[in-house]
C-alpha cells in the first residue's frame, strides 16, 4: 500500500532502506522506520522533489497535480 501525504507518495515495497532521501531532505520530513522510509512531518514538506530526484529505487515521488485538459 502506498503512503500518501501532501502529494508525497511512498511505495514501501520498492524502498530498500538506503536512507538517501531522509539524509538529504532539507525540511526533515522523512524518517526511517523498520528499514523503510516513512513520513515523519508531512506538513513541513515544501514539494522540492529532492527525495524523488535522488531515490535510486523510485520508491518516493511527488504526485503531479491533476491538470485541466
Amino acid at each position, binding site marked *: 500500500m*502506498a503512503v500518501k501525504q501532501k502529494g508525497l*507518495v511512498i*511505495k514501501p*515495497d*520498492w524502498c*530498500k*532502506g*538506503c*536512507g*538517501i532521501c531522509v*539524509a*538529504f531532505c532539507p525540511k526533515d520530513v522523512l524518517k526511517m522506520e523498520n528499514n523503510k522510509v516513512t513520513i515523519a512531518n508531512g506538513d513541513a514538506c515544501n514539494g522540492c522533489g529532492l527525495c*524523488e*530526484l*535522488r*531515490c*535510486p*529505487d*523510485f*520508491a518516493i*515521488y*511527488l*504526485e*503531479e497535480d491533476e491538470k485541466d485538459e
Partner: protein
Amino acid sequence: MASSLIEKYMRMDKLPHIWCPGCGHGIVMRAVVKAIDELELNREKICIVSGIGCSSRAPGYMNFNTLHTTHGRALAFATGIKHANPELEVIVLTGDGDCTAIGGNHLIHAARRNMGITTVVFNNNIYGMTGGQYSPTTPTGDKGTTAPYGNIDKVFDICSLAQAAGATYTGRATVYHAQLLIRLIKDGIKNKGFSLIDAISVCPTYYGRKNKKGDSVRIMEWLKDNAVNVAAASKLPPEKLAGKFLIGELYNNPQPEYTEEYKKIVESFQRG
C-alpha cells in the same frame, strides 16, 4: 503505481530493479529518462545500448528499443546501429570498467570519429557485479578484491580521455548533483557528435565497504563536499582545488558528425 515518469518510460514488470540498497545507478537511470522526457524525444527513434556490468542492466528496465551487448563492446554495437540508421538517437549506458578497461579501444575510436552517440558512464569506481575488483577509475591507494593492499595504478579521467580522443561534448556530474546530471545528459544528446557524460555513482556494497567509506549517504556527502563546479573552479586558487574534482560541462565544441560526413561521400557518387 509509481511516478508518471517511471510508469511512462520503464518496463514496470521488471521493477523493482535488482541493484543493491543505496546503489547510485537507479539515480543515473532516472536522470537518463528524465533528460529524454524533457527533450520530448520520440522514443521510437531512440536506441539504448549497454555492455556488461551493473550499469549495463539499465536498458533491461527501460522501455525503449534496447540492446544488451557483450563486455566492453556497447560502443562498437552502437556505432553499427548509428551507421545503419543515422536517424536514431543512440544512447550508450556503460560502466567505468566496461567503457574504459575492456572497452577502452572502442571508446577512443568512437570519440575519434565523432560518432553521433551519447555515452553515459555509470562510474562507481569498481567492478560491482563480479565482486569488487579494482577498475581504471578506482582511486590510487584505494582497495578492491584484486588490490587488497591498495591500488597502485593511476586513475583515468574519463572526460579528459574522451576529449583527447576527439569527443565533442564532455561533462561530469554525480548522483548527489542529479539535477546537473540531467542537464548534462540533455546537452550531450543535443550535441550531434560524440558526447560523454561521466556520471559519478556510488557503490556502497563493494567500493564503500572495502574502503571503509561508509554507506551511500556518507559517500554522497563526500561527493557533495569534494565536487567543484567548473565555473567556480576558475575563480579558486590552486590550493583550494587540491584533492577536489570538477563537475559541470567540461567541453563543448561541435564538429561534423561521422555518419553525416559518410553520407556526403555516398551522395557524391550518386550525383554522377
